[in-house]
């Protein structure tokens, strides 16, 4: 019997099987941010175990509230900063060099095919876009990861999601319909399988549409796997993965083909056993928008058109990357957002911000009337930089529409950057198709 990507990665990292179906695996990377790590650090200190398993495999960033907004968040940053210095953690990203964890860590080349990664953050599943097993964990698992470089999981079964477009000619060209993006694909999938549809499972994305996707798009796809309950999203490594990573791995391999050959050991076998296989034809998919307090409550934009909004937020680990800003800017170019709407854009990393400046994208946003913030997670979870007031509505490119998520009493409608940009101009939820050539 062949193996899935996750099974191959688990086999390559086996440490122990303490009982039944529990597998302790070794970790290639432990990612940390200032919200969930400080309590782990404090607890380790109280236990007299203030150690790290390997400072080169620990990466840390201050991203959720940055710059610090008050004494408490300043202290969280300080605990993380002091700890990084104390243990010689060189890959620590502080203000000015910091970005949203799930955007900056891949950008720095810290994620490789076949890696095992944990972080005290549920959207860690994003990094599966590189053919890694990457799982969000709580503070205790993080603490053990920091201390011992291991984590325990049930060996997850995988759900294969084969994404194709039957309207394409030739049939395997993998093109998305006009105005439809990776965000719409994943929202549609979550709507189909539900917020519990992949609990304890890995979602392995494949098919012509995924093959054609850039790494930015694959990260958007994998990022929201957890909204269906998945442990990790995964895209098998291919030449797109190699091209993205090449600047970091060119000294390790003689050629890109050699790198691909090496990474191919983490591609699934043809006869791998899946818990379920979902064939997803996106030929008639429309842009998707959420309507309730759960990410599986999605409708085509045509049914949401005209919904009042107070704020538009473009950013986050889901959709704050360069391609996302480019798409939104292509719609906003030469236009103003509605007077009734507050527009906020947060490029996810300093590098994305800088490139967006060079390409004139930031100017387009500013001319349209957007506020451009520094890279941070803040608004997405109602911590800073764009919190909603009671009764306000936000059109958002983030990943969660939970009650109170972006501020107590606020309503969040999740959508793609294109739909968010079109909605900003109109002042209500709108389809981007009228602005697309």
């Amino acid at each position, binding site marked *: 019997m062949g193996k899935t990507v996750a099974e191959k990665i688990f086999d390559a990292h086996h*440490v*122990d099987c*303490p*009982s*039944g179906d*529990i597998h*302790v695996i070794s970790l290639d990377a432990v990612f940390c941010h200032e*919200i*969930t790590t*400080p*309590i782990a650090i*404090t*607890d380790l200190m109280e*236990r007299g*175990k203030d150690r790290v398993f390997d400072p080169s495999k620990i990466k840390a960033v201050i991203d*959720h*509230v940055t710059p610090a907004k*008050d004494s*408490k*968040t300043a*202290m*969280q940053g300080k*605990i993380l900063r002091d700890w990084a210095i104390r243990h010689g953690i060189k890959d620590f990203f502080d203000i000015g060099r910091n970005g949203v964890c799930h955007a900056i860590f891949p950008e720095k080349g810290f994620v490789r095919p076949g890696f095992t990664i944990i972080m*005290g*953050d*549920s959207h*860690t599943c994003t990094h599966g876009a590189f053919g890694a097993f990457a799982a*969000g*964990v*709580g*503070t*205790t*698992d993080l*603490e*053990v990861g920091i*201390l*011992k470089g*291991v984590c*325990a999981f049930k060996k997850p079964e995988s759900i294969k999601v084969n994404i194709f477009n039957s309207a394409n000619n030739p049939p395997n060209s993998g093109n998305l319909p006009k105005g439809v993006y990776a965000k719409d694909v994943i929202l549609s999938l979550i709507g189909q399988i539900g*917020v*519990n549809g992949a*609990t*304890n499972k890995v979602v392995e994305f494949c098919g012509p549409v995924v093959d054609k996707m850039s790494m930015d798009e694959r990260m958007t796809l994998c990022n929201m796997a957890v909204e269906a*309950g998945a*442990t990790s999203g995964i895209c098998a490594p291919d030449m797109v993965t190699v091209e993205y990573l090449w600047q970091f791995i060119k000294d390790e391999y003689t050629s890109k083909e050699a790198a691909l050959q090496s990474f191919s050991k983490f591609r699934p076998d043809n006869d791998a056993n899946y818990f379920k296989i979902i064939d997803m034809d996106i030929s008639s998919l429309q842009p998707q928008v959420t309507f309730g*307090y*759960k990410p599986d409550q999605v409708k085509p934009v045509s049914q949401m058109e005209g919904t009042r909004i107070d704020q538009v937020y473009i950013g986050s680990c889901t959709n704050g990357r360069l391609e996302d800003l480019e798409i939104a800017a292509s719609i906003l170019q030469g236009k103003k957002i509605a007077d009734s709407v507050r527009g906020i854009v947060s490029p996810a990393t300093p590098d994305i911000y800088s490139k967006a400046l060079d390409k004139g994208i930031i100017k387009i946003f500013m001319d349209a009337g957007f506020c451009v913030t520094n890279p941070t997670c803040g608004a997405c*979870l*109602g*911590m800073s930089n764009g919190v909603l007031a009671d009764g306000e509505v936000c059109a958002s490119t983030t990943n*969660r529409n*939970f*009650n*109170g*998520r972006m501020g*107590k009493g606020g309503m969040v409608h999740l959508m793609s950057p294109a739909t968010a940009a079109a909605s900003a101009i109109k002042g209500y939820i709108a389809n981007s198709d009228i602005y697309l050539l």
Partner: protein
Amino acid sequence: MKNFNGKVLFLDRSDINTDEIIPAKYLTEISKEALKPYLLEDIVLQGFNQAKDIKGKSVVVTRDNFGCGSSREHAPWAFEVNGINLVIASGFARIFRQNMFNCGMMAVEIDKALLDRIFNLFADKDTAVETDMDKMTFKFIADDLIEIVPFTISEYDFSLVKAGGWVDYADKNY
């Protein structure tokens, strides 16, 4: 081991997420105790009264996919500092479930039909649970109404409950 006995708080809804259990704005707290007043502050649940309904409760009985969303261990901690160490449901989100056992608390799955029966019999009554860790049973009690519900947890999960959590276990074994 922690206490797994006491009065029941029924939360009759599936997909209750960790933002509802403890909103993100409280994640800036460094101490677990500071989370105490904010438990279930943003829950969407008809008739739920945060100020009255939590006090004196030690066990939560709820529906499916409990604890979905964020990985925040602040969710189990917010229960713990309110004296609640046991959640019974027909299903849990993976991270929440693991966080509970990692803290030496219990997230126990029981069959949906059995859960329906418990809700039907007890949800509108002043109910208590007695947990027998040797026999692996929950005894639901409301006046003279008694229902014994068997449960299973894995040997590994039980070892975490006995050890009081995963940190010491892992440091000793790996």
